């Protein structure tokens, strides 16, 4: 029992990253039906920006955070305007392939200019340290990241639930042309959603750096699948669902690996896909309610 608890606590950090990415992903997925394969590269852009600010330019941590968010938002907006807007009404699969293309381009651009090696992410001392609680070891950074994510999640949920803008976002999610007839400028909503989604990526990028101490040009590929599956499991367009699913997948994945025989540890990525297929066959609309027609 304790073992399970320990594994779960260890997974809180990674679960938070997935929660934030999933939330951002489900927003764009819900609003424009776009399966954005380049979402991982938005994260990577933020991570690289933070790396440049902190490790290369030697700027303090808080500047790194701002750089990360700025980097993610910049790339997110560029992708949206250049790749997605022109093909807005062409169909989900075309959009997906375009996003695949964008993802490959961005990743290779990064490898081209900065190389594919792991780049160090400087973790401030504030985040180091372990608490003990009985026999459990709780890393300080896991707790901080988890708390921040919960706060962000609640804020986001309140925003989407209570504000006029949130209602507009959800109505565009459900029926975009009807929303237009209500006077809602769907273009603005879409751009805003992308910005919001990218901000989440920027924050997640900082969390990643804190957790693993490194970033690289290829981290996008590792996370985009997780983000996608989290949003499908959580119900498309459902931000709270995606956040919850991020933790379910994160903790579930950790437990899955913990109970695998040692030489099969490489099967870890399979857990996500297992859950994916399970959900799609048993409850295709997701564990929680979806926000689309």
């Amino acid at each position: 029992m304790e073992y399970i608890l320990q594994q779960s606590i260890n997974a809180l950090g990674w679960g938070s990253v997935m929660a934030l990415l999933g939330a951002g992903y489900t927003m764009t997925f819900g609003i424009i039906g776009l399966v954005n394969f380049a979402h991982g590269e938005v994260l990577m852009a933020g991570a690289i920006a933070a790396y440049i600010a902190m490790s290369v330019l030697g700027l303090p941590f808080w500047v790194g955070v701002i750089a990360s968010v700025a980097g993610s938002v910049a790339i997110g907006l560029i992708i949206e305007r250049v790749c997605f807007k022109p093909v807005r009404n062409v169909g989900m699969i075309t959009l997906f392939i375009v996003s695949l293309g964008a993802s490959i381009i961005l990743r290779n651009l990064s490898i081209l200019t900065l190389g594919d090696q792991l780049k160090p992410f400087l973790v401030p001392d504030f985040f180091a340290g372990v608490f003990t609680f009985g026999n459990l070891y709780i890393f300080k950074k896991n707790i901080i990241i988890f708390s921040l994510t919960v706060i962000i999640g609640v804020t986001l949920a309140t925003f989407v639930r209570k504000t006029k803008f949130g209602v507009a976002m959800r109505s565009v999610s459900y029926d975009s042309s009807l929303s237009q007839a209500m006077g809602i400028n769907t273009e603005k909503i879409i751009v805003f959603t992308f910005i919001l989604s990218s901000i989440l990526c920027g924050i997640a990028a900082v969390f990643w750096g804190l957790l693993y101490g490194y970033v690289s040009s290829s981290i996008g590929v590792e996370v985009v699948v997780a983000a996608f599956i989290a949003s499908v499991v959580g119900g498309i367009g459902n931000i709270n669902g995606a956040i919850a699913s991020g933790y379910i997948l994160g903790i579930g994945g950790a437990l899955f690996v913990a109970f695998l025989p040692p030489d099969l540890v490489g099967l870890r990525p399979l857990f996500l896909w297992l859950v994916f297929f399970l959900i799609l066959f048993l409850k295709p609309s997701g564990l929680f309610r979806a926000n689309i027609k």
Partner: protein
Amino acid sequence: MNNLKNHIRTKRASLLGIVIILVATMYFIDGYVSGFWKTLLMLFGINVIFAVSLNITNSWINFFSIGHGGIILAGIYFAAFFTLPPGFKNGIVHLHLPEYVLNTQWTLLPALLVGSLFGALVAVLLAFPALRLKSFYFCAGSLGFAIIVTNIAENIRSITNGPAGLWQFPAYTSIWWVWGIAAAIVYLILMLKKSAFGRALIAIGRDQDLAEHMGINLLKYKIIAFALSGFIATCGGILWVHLIRTVSPSTFGLTFMFDIVAMMVIGGMGSISGAVIGAGVITFFLEVLAPIEEGFTLFGLQIPPFLGFTTILLGILFIIVLIRKPEGIMGEKELSITAISRFLKKLIEDFGRSQ
């Protein structure tokens, strides 16, 4: 009546003409072309096979698979067990395979058949999600399928040698094998497209429910479509591996899928002639620009390696095509022999008139 007879005669003559030209070209290439260009032409043919196979599932029955890499990988490994030299299987890596397999070494043709059949079987596994999942979710599921296959290949080291992959493949592939098989496949699938079976597949792609109501057994047709697509794709893969002579679980990943999808899209989704054209364009593009990735000397200047450059260019080209001309070069249409001969006749007439 005479017109019809003439028409058939012209068609038969043109077909014979094409075969003769093809065989002559093969002779020429085999004898006089070598090295880089020969390899490029062989890769062209192999990519044609890949692109044609992908058209069947992604365009005809409209189940967009990006998981064919997994099918090809599985089929290649299966064939590899038979074609790799026993010295490699026993000595250099230690594969835990049945006694007979470890000590034998097959030639290309039986390995092609057996490997492609295995690939077809693996492909049929993909047909089952195709029954339940709707368009985009199937696409995502196919990605998962490929990742799962790759992951399994990396982890059952005793059978597959894990991430290190396999090498020391015998150099079985020749220009004859590649283009002989490619030409046969192109011809057969072109015929299939016009046949009742092909039209049933395309009907499923257009409107699945309507097709079902017209009496088309979705289960049967989807399974056959996936099996066929998998068979052909694996064929191409086995030819590929006996040319490049090494493979690993990561070989047929997303970049590979993207290349083939690009060929399909640029040539025209659903068009077999389009697949040929697209494969040609992209293969040429990728191979000719490949040196840029390693760095080269131009007029005495050392140009540094630009890793990933070709992929970036391809990606940009791809996005441009999707935005400006989403139906590709050929659209859904095929080059027909009559159209070509008519075109040539007109060209000759115009030339004659201008004299």
